[in-house]
């Protein structure tokens, strides 16, 4: 009810044309853009620094680190975050970047599993993503991902929750308008994990999905769930070519 009232109160602008995409970065105030752009002021860099330390840290019975196999992240991880989610042969399903890092830990390091949205996994994902900062988003062309992208599209357009709203009702139909005082973005996931001032910490895209679903009074899926990975695949295909922001700052 509150959200619907806010929608009405906010006034609704027309959807942005597909060829005229705008990222959340472009919708921010100059002050928040400056906070993101200056490495020394971007609080997300604290997670990147933690991730850099974890990259070198031996884990599991063999005492193997990420760097032990992958070497310098600046070389081995450059561009990786820009193409995720990607296909995982072993499970026969797509995984997002955090999921890939978590699988790497359990399969190759023999270390204990890391939860989606846990601080160390966010730090590692932020560090890996940092190696693709500014690169254009380039979705993996693997055709096995196509049915998952379609599932994501269906989820994006399906009405859900007590407010009976689909993602598309806000992020396509009213993108560029306002929900209350907040601008409605076009849902391009160009900078995850990201530092949200609302969270006062780093968080992943799946946490953001959960916020949106709670907002429409729907039950969120679990972070890392196949539904969220499918939705992420669809959104990343819409965002193809936009520059990756690592780490992004958002209000």
């Amino acid at each position, binding site marked *: 009810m*509150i*959200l619907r*009232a*806010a929608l009405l*109160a*906010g006034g609704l*602008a027309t959807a942005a044309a597909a060829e005229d995409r705008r990222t959340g970065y472009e*919708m*921010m*105030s100059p*002050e*928040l853009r*400056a*906070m993101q752009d200056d490495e020394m002021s971007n*609080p997300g860099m604290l997670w990147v620094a933690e991730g850099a330390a974890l990259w070198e840290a031996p884990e599991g019975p063999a005492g193997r680190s990420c760097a032990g196999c992958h070497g310098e992240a600046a070389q081995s991880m450059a561009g990786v975050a820009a193409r995720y989610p990607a296909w995982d042969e072993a499970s026969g399903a797509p995984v997002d970047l955090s999921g890939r890092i978590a699988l790497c830990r359990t399969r190759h390091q023999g270390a204990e599993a890391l939860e989606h949205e846990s601080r160390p996994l966010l730090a590692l994902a932020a560090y890996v993503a940092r190696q693709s900062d500014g690169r254009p988003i380039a979705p993996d062309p693997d055709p096995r991902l196509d049915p998952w992208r379609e599932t994501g599209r269906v989820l994006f357009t399906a009405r859900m929750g007590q407010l009976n709203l689909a993602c598309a009702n806000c992020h396509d139909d009213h993108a*560029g*308008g*306002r*929900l*209350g*005082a*907040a*601008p409605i973005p076009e849902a391009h996931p160009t900078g995850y994990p990201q530092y949200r*001032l*609302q*969270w*006062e910490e780093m968080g992943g895209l799946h946490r953001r999905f*959960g*916020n*949106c679903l*709670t*907002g429409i009074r729907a039950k969120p899926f679990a972070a890392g769930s196949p539904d969220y990975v499918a939705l992420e695949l669809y959104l990343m295909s819409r965002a193809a070519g936009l520059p990756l922001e690592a780490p992004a700052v958002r*209000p």
Partner: protein
Amino acid sequence: MTHCPSRRTVVRLALAAPLALRLSPAAATPEAFRAALDDFTGGAPMTEGRVTLDVPLLVENGNAVPLKVSVESPMTAEDFVEEVAIFNELNPRPDVIRFHFTPRSGRAAAETRIRLNGTQNVHAVARMSDGSLWSAVTDVIVTAPACAES
């Protein structure tokens, strides 16, 4: 659609939409604000001027509002800024931060990020080495996402 709405629009929307800051409890009273100010000034008179307080006019989220303050001063051993106190009117407590400078600071300027529990005034008061007090005030409009995670 502009992405920097006019003040009037924002005020109207802010009234229509629930503000959902993590910083939620009761605001300080005007009396508490006066008491904090008096505690710093000792009740001595302040003059508006010499202090530049730079806070954005409108912020999307009150959890981290950039703040810069600077004071005109030669910063010599004979004439320098001793302390700058920042106050707000509507957070649970009025104190925000106090910057203590020395002649070796070279410049009486500092920046940080502050929390603001909604639209309000922010005050800066500087105490010089001669004991004189100088001040600046600015108002900040704080909007916050309407369907934010609590």
